[in-house]
């Protein structure tokens, strides 16, 4: 049997699945001041009368890092970056322990200015004196040549507990995002480590001794051990859990939209042939931009508990949430109250809901029923408008080759899958209003936990070969090997796949779930000097596609 547990902002959901069915599902309120206790009590509930020895997989998704960022209660850490020519990096991190140092590597990975060892020693001593324990080090173009980061780490090693290096974060270029991501990993490490060590110990006491898997923002899992190097990857795993939970119901060979309607927000995501779309670079939320691999999702500030009011004779819904619906003791009318008035939902105090919606109706000069319907329609329209904006953006993504331009794939959804409490009511309404097939996912209220339980391990590898220099490298994996002039595209891909398999297995993937590998990018260029060819640059990125583990197809039928 397997367990999936998703700690959300309001509720924590957990499921226990056998290969035939959902054996058990639970929903408990999240105590955000004590996530550890929330997780433990969920496991205790879930494992009542269950032999822990029958559990062979555990996947946990938490808001631990997300909360740490939102509440800004991360420990101060040191950051050392070297930029060389280009945009001034001094504004990238707002911290008094942030140092921009000399040293420069160019776009081909050639050293243009050396590291100043004395400068680094000086900074190390200052940071040590300030009580800093963890330091992140990032150099521009380190994904082409990480030698400066490695050298700086060697100097710092004796002063600090752990050093995080930029080139380990991702094979993608983007210096500011790499700095932000490395900073995040460095800053949440101690919190993540102590939290999950405590979880691990407690689960062992319950008799759960199997390795724990952690859900990432890209809808894949990684082992607890590998999460220690990249704790930032656990940020925003919640939306990913829900999207993964919708996959079984997505149409084959077609495009689909996933809408997860929560209390405060609705998460929007896209599936192509049952595979979720990824962000091209990494998570971005407002000004926070990172290289953390992530599903392509956006949140719109509208949900079942969004505040409703009338401003200038116009109905306004969200984005704030003031509490639960009035029917459940909240202070202001919400879409949930409207659903109750419309006779769709039967839970809650209908009289209180009527009070709330009634006040809105009077301001708009409508009957209660008319106002409730208007609220419901407006919610649908806000969500769908945002969704179509995202699709427009998706379909107008820049392309860099003639081939891509001419073959440009247009995302054209045939179906909307809805999750979250009010999913089934919204599905019907959207189908009626927009003439697009809409369907609430079965078990919509715990689909996130199911998604977590079934998510398979994902990872990616970026590999580049330079036949002029005679070397193939994947610096992210600390991999470098000599190659001959005749190193080909096929050699590159097979090397990349070998590295990907090794990385997946060390991140906790089991051998049965390694066949969904694909080439994401492949580029080939001649290096020409003085009008004669000197060699080739070959670059590729391969990934394990986000998806579900095998053997549980029956559970969801």
């Amino acid at each position: 049997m397997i367990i999936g547990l998703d700690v959300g902002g309001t509720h924590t959901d957990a499921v226990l699945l056998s290969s035939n069915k959902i054996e058990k599902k639970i929903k408990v309120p999240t105590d955000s001041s004590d996530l550890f206790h929330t997780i433990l009590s969920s496991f205790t509930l879930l494992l009542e009368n269950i032999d822990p020895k029958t559990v062979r997989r555990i996947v946990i998704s938490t808001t631990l890092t997300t909360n740490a960022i939102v509440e800004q209660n991360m420990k101060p850490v040191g950051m050392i970056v070297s930029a060389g020519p280009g945009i001034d990096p001094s504004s990238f991190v707002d911290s008094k322990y942030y140092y921009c140092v000399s040293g420069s590597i160019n776009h081909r990975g050639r050293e243009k200015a050396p590291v100043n060892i004395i400068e680094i020693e000086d900074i190390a001593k200052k940071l040590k004196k300030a009580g800093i324990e963890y330091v992140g080090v990032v150099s521009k173009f380190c994904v082409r040549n990480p030698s400066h980061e490695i050298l700086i780490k060697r100097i710092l090693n004796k002063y600090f507990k752990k050093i995080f290096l930029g080139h380990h974060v991702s094979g993608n270029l983007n210096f500011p995002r790499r700095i932000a991501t490395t900073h995040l990993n460095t800053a949440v490490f101690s919190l993540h480590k102590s939290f999950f060590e405590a979880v691990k110990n407690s689960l062992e006491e319950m008799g759960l001794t199997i390795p724990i898997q952690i859900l990432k923002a890209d809808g894949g899992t990684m082992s607890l051990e590998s999460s220690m190097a990249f704790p930032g990857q656990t940020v925003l795993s919640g939306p990913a859990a829900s999207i993964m939970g919708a996959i079984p119901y997505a149409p084959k060979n077609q495009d689909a939209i996933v809408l997860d309607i929560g209390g405060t927000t609705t998460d929007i995501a896209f599936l192509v042939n049952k595979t979720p779309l990824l962000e091209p670079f990494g998570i971005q939320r407002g000004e926070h931009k990172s290289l953390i691999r992530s599903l392509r999702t956006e949140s719109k500030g509208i949900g079942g508990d969004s505040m409703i009011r009338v401003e200038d004779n116009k109905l306004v819904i969200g984005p704030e949430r003031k509490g639960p619906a009035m029917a459940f003791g909240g202070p202001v009318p919400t879409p949930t109250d409207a659903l109750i008035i419309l006779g769709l939902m039967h839970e809650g105090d209908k009289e209180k809901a009527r009070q709330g919606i009634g006040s809105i109706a009077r301001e708009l000069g409508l009957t209660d029923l008319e106002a409730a319907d208007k609220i419901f329609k407006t919610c649908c329209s806000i969500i769908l408008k945002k969704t179509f904006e995202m699709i427009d953006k998706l379909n107008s993504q820049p392309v860099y080759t003639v081939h891509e331009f001419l073959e440009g794939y247009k995302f054209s959804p045939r179906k909307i899958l809805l999750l979250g409490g009010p999913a089934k009511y919204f599905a019907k309404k959207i189908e009626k209003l927009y003439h697009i097939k809409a369907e609430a996912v079965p078990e919509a209220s715990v689909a996130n936990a199911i998604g977590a339980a079934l998510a398979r391990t994902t990872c990616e590898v970026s590999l580049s070969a330079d036949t002029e220099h005679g070397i193939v490298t994947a610096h992210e994996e600390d991999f470098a090997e000599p190659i001959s002039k005749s190193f080909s595209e096929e050699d590159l891909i097979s090397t990349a796949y070998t590295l990907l398999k090794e990385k997946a297995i060390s991140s906790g993937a089991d051998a049965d779930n390694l066949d969904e590998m694909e080439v994401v990018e492949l580029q080939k260029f001649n290096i020409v000097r003085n009008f004669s060819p000197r060699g080739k640059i070959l670059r590729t990125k391969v990934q394990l596609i986000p998806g579900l583990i095998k053997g549980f197809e029956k559970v969801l039928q």
Partner: protein
Amino acid sequence: MLKALNKTGLVFFPAFDWAIDPTHPEREERLLYTQDQVIEEGVFDISGIIEYKPDIVSTHDIRRAHFCVPDEKTITTQSHLISAGGAKAIADAVLTKEVKSGFALVRPPGHHSMRVSHGGRGFCHINIEAIMVEYIRSHYGVKRIAIIDTDCHHGDGTNDIYWHDPDVLFISLHQDGRTMYPGTGFTGELGGPNAKGSNLNIPLPPGTSTEGYLYVIKNCVLPILNEFKPDLVVNSAGQDNHYTDPLTNMNFSAQGYAQLTTLLKPDIAVLEGGYSIEGALPYVNLGIILAMAGIDYSGVIEPDYDPEKLKQSVSITDKIKKTIDIINAYWRQKNDLRLKAGEPGQMQVRHREIFYDTDNIFEQQKETVRICRDCGGCISIDSKAKPGKHVLCVHIPINACKSCIEAGYDFFDKAEKKKFDKVFLQDRTKDTYEIK
């Protein structure tokens, strides 16, 4: 976080799968290192910098600027159409005011392509700026446009297309034609009889450095722009004036390009040449983007930059100053020059020979223009290419007066079909194109 002072649009179309041939300077990876630098710097994440997808131009778009012989399809590839479409996408973003200004980093380039195009010249098949400018005139009704060509080679194609057009001011800064392809662009080349002085060619001596370029911008280009008062400024932003460029002999720098952009404030910049793909382009393009967006570019310096080595000699400075005096004098006399060029209603003829180095074609032209004080004047071009076709091309300018429209149709109607392989009529007043 970084924020652009001016909202800036970018189209990035490196055409990673297109080359003239594998070792040609105009090949796949020309913009690879630029892309690496721009992405590593996180440019597309800067608030206020918006990346647009390139458009693709239609046959109709091309037919506003060119007579393609035998036809558009034969002399272009998809890459040319998308490159021109990149410029068009930026034009839309700027003209609809989604952004304040924009930069199309596209390839292949276009500024050596003339009005009649039988094939490739100087790595160019169709003129991406001219196609964009004509699109802007037809779609947005913009009247006065200035094109400042800062590529190291004379922008002879653009110069040819606007040779007779008094509403488009074309200024080209380039390495002296006696030392550089295409061997034209001397100070006396001022435009046709109806547009004398609205074409200005500024040849610069080999070894001109940042100081010289900025001198020309400050003491010639900006004052003339001030007087001309264009509604739109386009920069053909070639990057081969750089001190590391393998095809040229100039000493311009990334800092210089960025300062030039800050001074010129182009609404639209379109990439042209530039073949130092590792040593120059990544830094020059980054400098131009930051300058357009109004972001500090003081750190954009080539790793091997040595201002002492690149200092301009006194004799070069003197030569540049003399050239500028000549240009400024011509500009002041432009109205007189036009009056002296001929009587209204007269037909003026010039004979030309054009060599297409990229496609090895030799073209002979007999161009007839109607002298007119009210518009740019209609033009008829008898063009014979070896190898190639013999065609007659009639152009009626967008702002043509009634007499010139009539004269244009007269050229077309009277052309004997059996004398030519094809006869074309480009009527810009109605945005139509006829073939007989």
